[in-house]
């Protein structure tokens, strides 16, 4: 698959959401690491829509312009802050993102970049949180699938608040590296698909088409 899907430049859209950025050290450090990278659009949803009135047309235009969509947010209540939900509800319209004629997101990539309060170990079947992060993220996973997108392995900063400054800096540079790698094509997103992710049909069709061209 990786051979067929040749690495290339990708335009990256980071949809960022934190309702109280001034109180968040981890998310601020992560944001600082990626917000001014060239070829990366960093979009602070709470700043853009402090009154929650999301401009659907503008958001759809942004999505159309980019290849990789990153949802960067704290992992509140095993999910995302409220504005991400509002964004999903309003922007991913029937007939645009999914359903008949809804092919505008086909063959794009979706990834969550999250920070958690609990430690890695807590997110285990026998841990305090009883589920794996990837299990808890399954609504995003399925949403991506419905929209014909490839869903990538999440980038996670566990127990961010308890990290030392050096460890946090390291995490931030990992994150930056990942984003830059995806942007420049050093990292093929197809090699970072979420565990056991079955690509939607949109990708299959493309693969078959490419195969036909090859023969």
């Amino acid at each position: 698959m990786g051979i067929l899907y040749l690495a290339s430049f990708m335009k990256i859209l980071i949809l960022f959401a934190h309702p109280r950025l001034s109180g968040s050290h981890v998310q601020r450090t992560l944001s600082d690491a990626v917000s001014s990278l060239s070829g990366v659009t960093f979009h602070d949803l709470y700043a853009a829509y402090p009154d929650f009135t999301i401009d659907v047309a503008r958001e759809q235009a942004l999505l159309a312009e980019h290849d990789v969509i990153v949802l960067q947010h704290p992992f509140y209540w095993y999910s995302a802050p409220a504005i991400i939900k509002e964004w999903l509800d309003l922007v991913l319209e029937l007939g645009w993102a999914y359903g008949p004629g809804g092919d505008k997101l086909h063959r794009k990539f979706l990834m969550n970049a999250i920070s958690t309060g609990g430690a890695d170990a807590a997110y285990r079947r026998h841990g305090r949180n009883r589920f794996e992060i990837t299990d808890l993220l399954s609504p995003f996973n399925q949403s991506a699938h419905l929209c014909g997108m490839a869903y990538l392995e999440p980038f996670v900063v566990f127990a961010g608040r308890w990290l030392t400054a050096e460890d946090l800096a390291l995490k931030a540079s990992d994150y930056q590296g990942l984003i830059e790698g995806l942007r420049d094509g050093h990292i093929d997103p197809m090699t970072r698909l979420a565990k056991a992710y079955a690509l939607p049909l949109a990708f299959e069709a493309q693969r078959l088409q490419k195969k036909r061209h090859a023969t």
Partner: protein
Amino acid sequence: MQLSLDTFLLGAFVYLTAAVISVPIATRLGLGSVLGYLIAGMLIGPSVLGFVGSEGQDVLHFAEFGVIVMLFLIGLELQPSKLWTLRKPILGLGGMQVIGTAAALALALILFGLGWQTSITIGLILAMSSTAIVLQSLAERGQLKTSGGQAVFSVLLFQDIAVIPILALLPLLAAGGGAPAPETHGYLGSLPAWQQALVVFAAVALIVLAGRYLMRPLFRLIAMTGLREIFVALALALVVGITLLMETVGLSPALGTFLAGVLLAESEYRHELEMDLEPFKGILLAVFFIAVGAGIDFKLIATEPVLIFGGVLAFILVKLVVLYAIARFARMKPPRASLFSFSLAQGGEFAFVLISFAGGLGLLALAEANMLVAIVALSMAAAPLLMMLDAKIIQPRFESQGFRREADKIDQTGSQAIILGHGRFGMTVGRVLAANGSRATVLDHDVEQIDALRKFGFKVFYGDATREDLMQAAGAADAKILVVAIDNREKINEIVQMARRNFPHLEIFARAFDRTHAYELLNAGVEHVYREVFDSSLALAEDALVALGTHPYEAARALRLFRRHDETLIRRTARHAGDIDTIVDISRAAQAEIERVLSGDQQPRPDYSPDRGWGALAEVAQDPRSMSENEEKAAS
């Protein structure tokens, strides 16, 4: 006249004190400041207390400068393009008024047995109205910019222009009557006619050219010095200079300064000029009104009471009839025609000028002239009363009549919402409701506004909302909500009381002017109270926070919290309204509370922060160091 400093200061003291004492009383009684000044003048005049004596006429002449400054200020608010749109009312209404009134009065006087020359002279003199009294009164009641006020203004402007041909006409009348040669008038009188015309034209051209090309650079130069008093000095020098120029060539100084004002209306110094000259205008006009009051000769009135009061009455009546006829002919609706007539039905300050001029020509005998002065002065004193008669007694009748005409239509609307007042406040409410499919029934008392709104498809009706029957006709019995958005504090309270008494089922949404007014309304039982600038100041504060570096969402949330806090606070303190100490105590405590809440970010106080869920505090329990053994095992 030799005026020593002492007499000048004493006179100034008497005038100012009289104004300070009488005007507050007059305005408190709802009579308006103009009547207050006039009464003050009568009291200090030679006939009553005698504080001021024969110099009254000089003072009057001096204080006419206030009228000139006023015309300059009015000109400043009138862009040339706007003046151009007024050309029809100025020539049409103004021309009809001066000619019509003069003809009607002259005819009456001829029938009364006076000579035709004298009759025409008196007719022309009395056709003039008082620019000072009328404009001041209209401005005080905010009617200057209504179309009725504009019509009145147009006529006054035309009268200013008409003084020039009248001054030229009177000597001809005198010649026809075989009177002595006219006394020369200004510099102009000594020149042949074509040169007079040339000089007049040159003077006007000078004002236009200087106003266009000279004044702005000059004001800029002075403004750059940063010396405010020099700017004021230049402004005054400009007005005084034009006055002198106009008097030299025999034109109306008021007209000249008005023209200069119009030319400067588009300049960037307009507001500065307005602010600087406003106090001069105010004081000089006050002195002018007082001088008019002081000039009323009560001794003469006492000797000929019937003739003089009869004359005043007849003269006002003739003026009223002619004015109303003109107004109706010009297709004004009855309420506007009434405002128009009652505003202009008095004699004016130009009459004094014309009387002395005509006296000099021998067109008027001394006794006639004195009597005319008394009649004009009395009519000027009556002017504020006439305007009040119109506003308080006649207009309300039109309101009820005008309304009755449209009552049927209102009945058919069946709107669930009634909005009272469709100005800057009510209009927004109405638009939002309309945009969301709820057309409201709107009541307003501004006829022009209503006509305009109807063109946009709003159901707007004319009427005084304090009237219960009108509310009934507007469908108050079937409506669900009542929005009180008029811009009159007392009336809002009145309406709220009336509505709660007669339509208790109506949910009232009221506009409040400020905190104190909000208290009044809350205590009157209104639940939904909206301080008119509260939300816009919050919106500004939010943007200011963002500009200072606060994250937009945090700013938005901080302001929403503050808003809720303040709305709660105002309801908690409302019942203590008037008890300042208690309010201060509650407010202090509450202020400390909101500060704790909003500063939660800087000093985390879990007890107070309403959004601690977004911080990491809630995750303390998940500190990896505090994990149980079981979890440690799972983690490894």
